[in-house]
């Protein structure tokens, strides 16, 4: 299957000479339709810059980005808004709904920006909001919606123009854990059922479970977290090939953050059998 | 104070808008009051510059302008003969509407006896009239209508030649023009008629005494020039002063609105900063001071800018429309300063109260 979104050797450099900052360095990425990719990494690693470039909000210093075959970097400024409207859906940490419009109007607006007529936009917006269980909240202003409801409206808004790619920036950061989890499951469901690609930038460890791929962005470059395991003693998430210590016992392999944890584990083994 | 400066300075555009709003208000107030004062001066210019301390008019008349006065026959001689009267200037005057190249121009016609005075006090060009078909026109009026020395103008059925151009006889509403008294007598078909007598009293004679003696004469009224001038000003004020003052007041109000809005939005956006200060323990009073200081700085800047603009606008308007006299004196600028400060106080009021009511817990909101 052809990737729907491709980044080839993309770099973003700010400033010049002594003050030069390489926010993103020689990054390549291919995204398949229906794929959910999670991008994680420490603050300042360039995650936001990457997401901005993917969404045609920022021009790379080098490299090319293709959406459905079209090279973003070759388009003029005036062509980008239309491209964003039709190909991308955005979801934000702060929801970013327009405070003066109701839930329904927020979703309708984006449809109308893409050229939909009033009646048609309303119909589609009602449909998609109903799918998300918000049929009782259509005329509510954002200030009257709960965090989870707001994010669902935002997702509806992101989907209304049937984009190929959804870009989400910390979608669960302002939600409590239960709601956040539901939102992520919803995103995964949309990706799989509707064959849309989802790129999520997040710190939230729980999202790892629903992602097809987890990319680690550090100092402007990607590292794929091949496989991860939990340290049974302290609970830390460990990359298997970077584990400080490991142990094989009764056919199962265990990974530890440090030799100290492994030592504790071994001591425990000797004293009591592990639960099944 | 420092925070006020930084708070405002952070958005330079907003500060400029703030200053612009106040400057506009100050500009309007200065110009409007300047125009009104200028009109007052123009209206009373004839009385101010013509000799005499008393004005004798037809009974029941207490204005010079806007009225037609006709003294009873023989009044001039009787006034002249009254004890304490040194000299008498007779004039025959009335309004006319001049049709000058399609535009109607009101002008105040004064018929005087050149030998006795009562005519133009300063000539920009030419001379006084020597014949009944000669006239002296106000210089600015002549310029506005492309009249020059030697040109002819039709007035009330007679063709007059412009032989002189007078200075200081302009007004946006009417200008003065001068003919010989005998010329006006024949124009209005009232030989020997006189409208007013300007009376100069003997040195040493009491003006009040002369006045009461003259008042006892039949069919006349006597007033001091000052009283007549005041009456003319009052008459004008009735029709034009009110709208002008109203507009100046509105300008001040709008200035306050503008500043208030800017300060308000600046304060709202910095709500967190203020909340933090409060949480740390800053007393309300110091926060009020910050808000008021902000509006003060902006208002003072606006006062200066507005004053400079007013001086420039005055020069421009008077150059383009010389019939307008705009008077700007130091007292006016003091008024502007007071208005600016007033605006600052009023504009800072609502935002200051809002800060006062701010709960310090705001600081922990995302």
């Amino acid at each position, binding site marked *: 299957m052809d990737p729907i979104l491709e980044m080839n050797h993309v770099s973003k450099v700010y400033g010049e000479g002594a003050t030069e900052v390489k926010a993103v360095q020689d990054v390549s990425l291919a995204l398949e339709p229906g794929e959910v990719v999670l991008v994680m990494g420490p603050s300042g690693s360039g995650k*936001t810059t990457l*997401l*901005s470039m993917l969404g045609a909000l*920022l021009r790379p210093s080098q490299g090319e980005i293709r959406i459905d075959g079209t090279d973003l970097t070759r388009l003029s400024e005036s062509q980008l*808004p*239309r491209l964003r*409207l039709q190909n991308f859906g*955005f979801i*934000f940490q702060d929801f*970013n709904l327009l405070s*003066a*419009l109701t839930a329904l109007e927020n979703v309708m*607006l*984006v449809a109308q*920006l*893409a050229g939909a007529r009033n009646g048609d936009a309303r119909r589609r917006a009602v449909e998609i909001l109903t799918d998300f269980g918000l049929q009782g909240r259509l005329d509510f202003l954002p200030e009257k919606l709960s965090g989870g409801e707001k994010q669902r409206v935002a997702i509806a*808004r992101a989907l209304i123009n049937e984009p190929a790619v959804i870009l989400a920036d910390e979608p669960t950061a302002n939600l409590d854990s239960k709601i956040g989890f539901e939102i992520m499951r919803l995103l995964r469901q949309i990706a799989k059922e509707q064959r849309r690609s989802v790129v999520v930038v997040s710190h939230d460890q729980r999202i790892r479970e629903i992602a097809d791929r987890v990319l680690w962005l550090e100092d402007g470059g990607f590292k794929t977290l091949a496989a991860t395991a939990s340290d049974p003693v302290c609970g830390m998430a460990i990359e298997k090939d970077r584990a400080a210590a490991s142990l094989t016992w009764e056919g199962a392999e265990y990974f530890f953050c440090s030799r100290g944890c492994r030592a504790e584990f071994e001591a425990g083994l000797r004293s009591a059998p592990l639960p099944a | 104070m420092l925070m006020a400066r930084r708070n405002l300075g952070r*958005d330079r*555009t907003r500060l400029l*808008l703030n200053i612009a709003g106040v400057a*506009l208000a100050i500009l*309007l107030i200065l110009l409007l009051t300047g*125009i009104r004062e200028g009109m007052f001066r123009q209206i009373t210019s004839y009385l101010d510059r013509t000799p005499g301390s008393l004005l004798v008019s037809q009974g029941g*008349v*207490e*204005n010079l302008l*806007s*009225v*037609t*006065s*006709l003294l009873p*026959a023989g009044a001039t001689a009787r006034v002249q003969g009254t004890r304490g009267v040194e000299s008498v200037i007779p004039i025959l005057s*009335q*309004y*006319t*509407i001049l*049709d000058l190249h399609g*535009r*109607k121009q009101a002008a105040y016609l004064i018929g005087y006896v050149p030998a006795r005075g009562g005519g133009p006090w300063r000539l920009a060009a030419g001379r006084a009239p020597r014949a009944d078909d000669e006239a002296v026109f106000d210089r600015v009026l002549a310029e506005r209508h492309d009249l020059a020395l030697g040109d002819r103008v*039709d007035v*009330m*059925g007679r063709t007059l030649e412009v032989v002189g151009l007078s200075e200081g006889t302009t007004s*946006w509403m*009417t200008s003065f023009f001068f003919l010989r008294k005998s010329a006006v007598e024949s124009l209005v*078909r*009232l030989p020997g*008629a006189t409208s007013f007598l300007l009376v100069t009293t003997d040195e040493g004679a009491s003006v009040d005494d002369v006045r009461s003696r003259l008042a006892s004469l039949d*069919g006349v009224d006597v007033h001091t020039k000052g009283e007549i001038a005041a009456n003319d000003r009052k008459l004008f004020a009735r029709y034009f002063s009110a*709208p002008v003052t109203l*507009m100046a007041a*509105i300008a001040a*109000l*709008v200035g306050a*609105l*503008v500043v208030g*809005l*800017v300060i308000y*939005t600046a304060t*709202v956006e910095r709500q967190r900063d203020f909340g933090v200060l409060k949480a740390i323990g800053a007393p309300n009073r110091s926060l009020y001071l910050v808000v008021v200081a902000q509006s003060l700085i902006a208002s003072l800047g606006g006062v200066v800018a507005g004053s400079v603009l007013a001086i420039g606008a005055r020069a421009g308007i008077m150059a383009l*429309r010389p019939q307008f006299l705009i008077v700007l004196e130091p007292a006016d600028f003091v008024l502007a300063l007071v208005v600016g400060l007033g605006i600052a106080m009023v504009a800072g009021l609502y935002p200051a109260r809002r800060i006062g009511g701010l709960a310090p817990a705001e600081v922990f909101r995302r």
Partner: protein
Amino acid sequence: MIRLAWRNLTQNPARLLISLGGVSVALVLMLTLDAIFTGMEQRVTAFIDRSGADIFVSQQDVRNMHMASSSLARGQQARVKSVAGVASVTPILYVTNPILAGKDRSLAYIIGVPSDAKAGGPWEIESGREDPGAGGVVLDVGVAAKAGIGLGGEVEILGDTFEVVGLSHGTASMAGSVAFISLDDFADLWQDSDTVSFLLVETAPGEAPEQVAAGIEARVRDVTAMTRQEFARQERKVVRDMSTDILAIMNIVGFLIGLAVMALTVYTGTLSRRAEYGVLKALGARNGKLAATVVWQAVISVSLGFLIALILTSLLTVAAPLASASLRLVIGLPSVAKVVVTSLVIAGVASLLPIWQMARLDPATVFRRR
């Protein structure tokens, strides 16, 4: 985008109120001043329009009553009467002067009419009689009321005392009222019985006034003859020409005030929504759409402001005459059209800076951490 503009406006009622208030004040200023002058224009010709004369004969070159005077020899009356098409000639004397009614001093057109006047006398009598007669005066009912006098009261005119014998309607404007005394009394006060001011001519039925007027000018020396309509037109022109300068100033003042308030409210309104506009840009809205939102906000604001101003001014036209009989406001169509155009210009200019600022807004800021 209209919907968004409307919602943005109504979301902040305080700011909306300020902008509506400021704009409507400025527009009321312009509309009211225009209305005052239009009313004056119409009223200033009340005497001419209602005089009953078809033609006015005046001293040569005199084409106005307001702020002017005219002197004709009495003998001209016979000569005018002899012109073909003239049915009747009524001489009147006229001067503008203050009259003293009670303690109230006000300016008036003082008209001296003969007792058998076919034209030139009061046209609508509320009480009393219409012929002033010797020693009598017909006074405007509003002026009398303001002075606190009625029939039988005393009025001082040109130094002499007259008794109110009739009260008339429609004879007052901001420029002054009209008071009628007898022609003979007027001539006495003017120490001259040989002069009249105007000759009011009624034309014979079927005669065209313009032609009769031309005939009068051709046959009688040193006079100007105008039809009633032409004379009225000349009078209105006086008001118009004299007020253009002051009206221009006031209109500019109003425009600047309205612009200042509108520009500021649009600017601050846009500024406070900068983040939301950034989001819209990120989602794919073009600059044109954002500009449209700003412009619509301005247009809606000024439109509402205009409606409020129109309503307020209309209320004023009803209330003003109740406060003072001479105050008459007339809202003319040209005035409304001018104010509409001004409002739209204000909306456009006020939007310029915010539109420019929004065009420069970088959509990538939407991902910035708060």
